[in-house]
């Protein structure tokens, strides 16, 4: 693993982010305000949590496509546990998160125990978990949560949206784990060369199992925040969020082949996408134009980073 090439992509991306922020604030005086930026943080928390866990998964050379479906399943279970089963809401939240974490564990189990490639395993559970959400919900939405629950998704703590604190905490903890612990190094080692890691005595299977479980947990947490933000549950929640999260991760410089990537990169990638979505909208660009530009930025950022950062090697 080459530390210098690592730094380079993140630096380039950070410069790009600054450039985008400058251009966008010049386009609209409502963009670079504290309240708008904090509000954008609120909107990107769910994708952010999922993207942080996804960074680990992708750094091992894996992928988790089922996160959007886990989000939908947990949202539905939260409502069902609370309203139909009659659990107190805090207990329903814990139970729903536990179920979603179990769904992530199932992914890891299928991947490690049966040696199913992650893409195939999570494609299958993408359909399965979404199907369970639809079946359990019977198309019913659960609404009317007590007011304290909305603090999580719609409230503020010390002037900052509540969920943004969670995202900060998750990002810092994840960054420390990935960069400074033995466990983080195991993640990179698996991504660089899985067979070699196994021979050198690293607990490859255990690590992978833990990562997919963590990914399920992150999606579950995102689900609870999402439900609190929009005050209802629906079985189609989170559809397509996996691609948004993967976009942020790869834009942030994590190699899809594994072995390389940082949490900082993912966070910058996330901010860049959110800034473009918001700033372009404020500057009068329509939604379809914005997604075109985000697509172009993704390709160009990796292209430029490839040209200047590494001499063509993967």
């Amino acid at each position, binding site marked *: 693993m080459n530390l210098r090439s690592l730094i380079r992509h993140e630096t380039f991306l950070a410069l790009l982010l600054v450039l985008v922020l400058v251009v966008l604030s010049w386009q*609209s005086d*409502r*963009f670079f305000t504290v309240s*708008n930026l904090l*509000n954008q943080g609120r*909107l990107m928390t769910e994708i952010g949590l999922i993207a942080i866990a996804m960074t680990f998964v992708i750094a091992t050379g894996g992928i988790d496509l089922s996160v959007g479906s886990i989000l939908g399943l947990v949202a539905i279970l939260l409502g069902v546990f609370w309203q139909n089963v009659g659990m107190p809401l805090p207990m329903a939240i814990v139970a729903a998160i536990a179920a979603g974490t179990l769904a992530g564990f199932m992914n890891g189990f299928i991947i490690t125990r049966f040696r199913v490639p992650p893409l195939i395993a999570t494609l299958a559970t993408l359909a399965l978990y979404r199907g369970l959400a*639809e*079946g359990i919900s*019977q*198309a*019913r*939405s659960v*609404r009317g949560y007590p007011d304290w629950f909305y603090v999580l998704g*719609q409230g503020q703590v010390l002037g900052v949206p509540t969920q943004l604190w969670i995202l900060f905490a998750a990002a810092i903890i994840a960054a420390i784990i990935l960069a400074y612990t033995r466990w983080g190094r195991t993640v990179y080692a698996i991504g660089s060369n899985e067979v070699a890691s196994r021979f050198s005595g690293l607990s490859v299977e255990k690590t992978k199992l833990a990562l997919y479980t963590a990914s399920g947990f992150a999606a579950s947490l995102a689900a609870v925040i*999402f439900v609190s*933000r*929009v*005050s*209802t549950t*629906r*079985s*189609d*929640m989170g*559809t*397509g969020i996996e691609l948004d999260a993967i976009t942020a991760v790869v834009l942030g410089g994590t190699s899809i082949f594994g072995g390389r990537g940082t949490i900082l990169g993912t966070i910058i990638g996330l901010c860049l996408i959110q800034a473009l*979505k*918001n700033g372009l*909208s*404020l500057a*009068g660009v*329509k*939604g*379809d134009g914005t*997604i075109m530009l985000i697509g172009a930025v993704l390709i160009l950022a990796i292209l430029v980073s490839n040209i200047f950062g590494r001499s063509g090697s993967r």
Partner: protein
Amino acid sequence: MGKIVLSAILALSFSTSLSHAQSTWTGGDDLPTNPLACDGAAATAAAVPYDGGEPTDAPDRKGKTLTVVDVPKLVGIGYFNATSKGIAEAAAEMGTMNAKTDGPSRANIDDQITLIDNYITSGVDGILFAANDPVAISPVLKKALAAGINVVGYDANSQPDARQWFVNQAEFNGIAKSMIDAMAAEIGEDGAFAIVTSTFTTPNQARWIAEMEAYQSACYPNMKWLETVEAQEDNILSFNQANTLINKYGDEMKGILGMTSVATPAAADAVTQAGQCGNVAVVGLATPNAMKPYVASDCVKSVVLWNPVDLGYAAAYVLRAVADGTLQPGATSVEAGKLGELQVINGSEILLGAPFVFTKDNINDFDF
């Protein structure tokens, strides 16, 4: 091989056991229904006090040029093209409204919320919306009201206190009556029919189906309700699902009800290509342009819809009236340009009119 067979059988037995538990599903929601009288006598509506919201510290916008954004459920389908055409028409007529339409590229609650949030920040005067989910959209609309923005809904409602007014294209029970009446006229009062809908989670469709069920059991108790299939907003899937229904029920099924502007033309195409025109009736909600080929070939006799261009047009006029202060809580009607006086119902809704039934005689008069 044994294990494969075993697992497949397990999966199948799982699925069949589920089917017994769930065989009566129709796709309706479980909210209370309010079917109209079979002979079409108007129900006496009790007056409901205004239950909409109010913007906080809205500036005086009387007569001023308004910047308005229209956020439909999604862009890229004929129906919302028509509504945004109506809004643009009204804006051009008034000359004091800059309206633009910007919606998510898929019917996704989060994308829609994010878009509205951005427009609140950008400081528009008014928001027109068609909600993907009545509850999920409400917090962001309340935020718009709190920022002093005038908020008016059309097509799909939010919670009443999250917007000021909602332009109701036709009441749910009115649509239900038109659909079932048209179907009964074609297949007889004892015919059997199936339904192709979009998804279970689409509130309007679930509401219509529930109302249809109530109306049918009250007015045509001998009609047989076969089943409801889901087909997303996907025309090929709708076509395949309609085909499968035709294949499954054969002569038993006399009609298909299409619940969306995507499903209805696809179902009509399935009936046409299966050579079942005249044997299987198609009735449904659809835009006239998409249905012209099937109506012209006599495969489809009636298409139920309000005029979405008028719906958008009315929504724009209501927004203007709210901003000008001429439409106040407690009003009983509102003036909407060429549409004349529109009635206020249910406290804070404005009724566009009765649903319209397009037939061969009049469908060519419409272009949307």
